[in-house]
């Protein structure tokens, strides 16, 4: 595929025209032009503990602060980036230096936004705190003038990886004059972020909602369309549905309801179910296998377990058809890196049994081959159900299963700190680039005690490590894609982690809302283009 918009030089003018095209194709954009004004009330299930955390802090803070803070670049599709706080950028031929031209704009408190803020955010915050290896490789940021920031990486930074990293929801630029010299985790601005974005925080009524209002001084003329943006916190799915039906809430993102409920709501004339906007932020359900257990250390055993699982059954029954069977660590929808050329494990319990026999685990006198501890995590309600399904099918092939379902804190401790499991049901999120959040589930340096959502399996394979290390610095897109295909191939051949489902993501939207879901991680977009019918 010819990547048109990822060029070495990208001007604001060009971006604007490309963007206009994107707008035209966006769902919900009707013939009538966008209208200014109105209050969009969106709903989210979990109230964040804080509105900004330098390390990211999970989806609850991010869904709010991405409306207030901005990144240097904005990712609008798998292969499409556009300028945000940077109006343009240049990349050196060795891919180690990125030069950003910055917009002239002000922070919400009136102080000017300058290259010093970019320098501070990238060098003093992200390079120190980010879990993204590339951002940690930022060596220095030069600021020849207020509107120029030159970023030096210690190693070649592949363009796609670099832009995707800078466009990631956690890479928002924060004001140096507020944060410099303070303890980031205790800064009061964490609960009242000051940004450059289209919306300003008006009030965080704890336990209830966050209210944001239009930033009148926003750098892009005519944006945002909305006067006000409110994010309400409603924990109970039934109550969320009632709020949607009652028209009190107009937008619910990221699978706000169980499958059948989505169908019921979407059948209403005033609501639609929308499945776009998650191409570079897709959740997967996976099963980790702990190779510290000598039984699971055998590849044949892991493969046998993989054969014993009918992924389509999970998709159809547990996810009500909303999603698809994963074929590996990169979801099918991530078209830039997805490779179908991997080992696959179609449902075949007989073969699973044979493999186990061959591996030296015949059925013993007690009717079992061996017994495993299954920990099903609580992050998604489907996890526990899937755990029960796994217990069933694995017991069918005579593997005894003891299932445990600790709560959030207990699960993190048990899986990622104490490694007290044999197999798990957990989840990962597939970002734009596999190097951002996917490969560390498999690599040797992903093994970090107590660091959650990384390699808890203890799987270590020099061949895989080498491929990933190369992909981290390979600047030729085609070669890089081949390396990552190789990564998928090794991962699936050895299956220390079996990805089960690419979870289908759905938003439920009131028909009054227009121009949503057109970027590839729209939930974390600033929503400056959304408008409401009066």
């Amino acid at each position, binding site marked *: 595929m010819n990547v048109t918009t990822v060029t070495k030089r990208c001007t604001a003018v060009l971006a604007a025209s490309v963007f206009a095209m994107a707008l035209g194709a966006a769902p919900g954009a009707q013939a009538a032009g966008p209208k200014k004004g109105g209050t969009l009330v969106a709903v989210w299930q979990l*109230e964040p503990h*804080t509105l900004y955390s330098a390390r*990211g802090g999970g989806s609850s803070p991010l869904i709010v602060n991405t409306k207030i803070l901005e990144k240097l670049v904005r990712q609008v599709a798998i292969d499409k980036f556009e300028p945000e706080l940077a109006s343009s950028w240049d990349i050196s031929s060795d891919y180690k230096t990125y030069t950003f031209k910055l917009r002239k704009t002000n922070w919400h408190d009136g102080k000017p936004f300058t290259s010093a803020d970019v320098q501070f955010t990238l060098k003093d915050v992200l390079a120190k705190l980010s879990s993204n290896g590339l951002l940690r490789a930022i060596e220095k940021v030069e600021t020849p003038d207020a509107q120029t920031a030159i970023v030096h990486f210690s190693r070649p930074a592949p363009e796609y990886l670099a832009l995707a990293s800078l466009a990631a929801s956690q890479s928002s630029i924060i004001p140096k004059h507020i944060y410099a010299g303070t303890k980031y985790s205790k800064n*009061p601005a964490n609960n009242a972020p000051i940004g450059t974005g289209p919306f300003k925080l008006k009030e965080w009524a704890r336990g209830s*909602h966050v209210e944001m209002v239009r930033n009148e001084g926003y750098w892009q003329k005519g944006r945002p369309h909305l006067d006000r943006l409110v994010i309400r916190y409603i*924990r109970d799915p039934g109550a969320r549905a009632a709020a949607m039906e*009652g028209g009190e809430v107009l937008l619910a993102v990221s699978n706000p309801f169980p499958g059948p409920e989505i169908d019921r709501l979407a059948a209403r004339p005033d609501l639609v179910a929308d499945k776009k906007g998650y191409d570079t932020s897709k959740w997967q359900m996976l099963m980790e296998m702990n190779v510290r257990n000598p039984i699971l250390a055998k590849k044949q055993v892991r493969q046998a377990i993989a054969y014993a699982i009918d992924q389509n059954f999970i998709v159809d029954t547990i996810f009500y058809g909303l999603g698809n069977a994963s074929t590996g660590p990169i979801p099918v929808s991530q078209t830039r890196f997805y490779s179908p050329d991997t080992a696959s494990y179609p449902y075949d319990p007989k073969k699973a049994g044979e493999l186990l026999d061959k591996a030296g685990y015949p059925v013993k006198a007690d009717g079992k081959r061996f017994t495993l501890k299954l920990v099903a995590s609580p992050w998604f309600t489907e996890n526990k159900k899937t755990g029960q399904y796994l217990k069933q099918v694995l017991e069918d092939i005579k593997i005894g299963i003891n299932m445990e379902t600790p709560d959030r*804190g207990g699960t993190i401790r048990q899986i990622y700190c104490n490694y007290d499991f044999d197999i798990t049901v957990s989840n990962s999120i597939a970002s734009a680039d596999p190097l951002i959040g996917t490969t560390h589930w498999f690599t040797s340096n992903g093994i*970090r005690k107590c*660091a959650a959502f990384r390699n808890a399996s203890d799987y270590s394979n020099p061949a895989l490590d080498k491929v990933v290390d190369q992909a981290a610095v390979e600047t030729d897109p085609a070669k890089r894609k081949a390396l990552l295909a190789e990564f998928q191939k090794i991962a699936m051949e050895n299956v220390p982690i079996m990805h089960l489902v690419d979870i289908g993501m759905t938003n439920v939207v009131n028909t009054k809302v227009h121009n949503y879901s057109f970027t590839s991680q729209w939930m974390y977009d600033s929503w400056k283009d959304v408008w409401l019918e009066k």
Partner: protein
Amino acid sequence: MNRTFLAVRRRLLQAVPVVFGIVAIIFLLLNLSPGDLVDVMAAEEQISDPQVLEQIRAEYGLDKPIYVQLANYVWNIVHLDLGYSFRHSQPVWDVIVERLPATLILMSVSMALALFIGGLAGVVASIKVNTLYDNLISVVAIIFFAAPSFWIGLMMMVLFSVKLGLLPVSGMYTIGGDYSLAGEIWDVTRHLVMPSFALGLFYAAIYARVMRASMLEVSGLDFIRTARAKGLGEKRVAFKHILRNALLPVVTLFGLQLGTMLAGSVVIESVFSWPGIGTLVFEAVLTRNFPLVMGVLLFGSILVVIANLAVDLVYMRLDPRIELR
């Protein structure tokens, strides 16, 4: 009255060691649960550096042995410092005080509703004992007793908000609504209707049944016959002589149930997105934010101590045979 004052003061002083006992037990129980705040934060924040985790643990004081942590906590409590919620970047006190009024409003209105509706239903049922009214009240009470309150809440939501559009779905006030003081009170009242009924009806059902039984029992006592022998009408007998005595078990129950109602409000607050303590403590437990959990429970136990004292004072007013000791 002076004696009452002394007794109240003594009771409050006696409550102090009890509260500290509760604090210590809860503290130890909480620390028995696997995982700590840092685990949860590490997961959310994608912290991958074990050294950083150790740093944070040291900063939060989680690296010390449990008994040292407990001693520190108690020491701080003595100095009226509830600690710091690192998760909220706020002192625990501030976090709680911000959310406490909503819970207090919800609980007191629910309790008032429960007492009024349950009490009235119980009185009517006992006066009309074994009639259609009585049976009807019994059936309704059983339904509200057996049905989970979150379900009742959702059903009310579907009926009154979605279908009839009479009441706001959830929350405590209209977001961005710009009202006068009276308008604001009216707005909150409208939001309060469903959660307070959803929470209160369960207790109303209990009170109705206890009230009915208690009324019937009292109505068989000798002094009720005396009241009738005076020539008093049935209504006066029921509402003056029987009710006053029949209230005693209900008041006792009320005192006992304040604690459980605090727990019940967690569910209702979560269903109706009521910005109170309930949702806060739920989240705090899940994230192992123990200073906050402890703070809330401390508040809760003080609340229960005070409420029980108030109940005893009421009891004393209702029944002159009882004296506060």
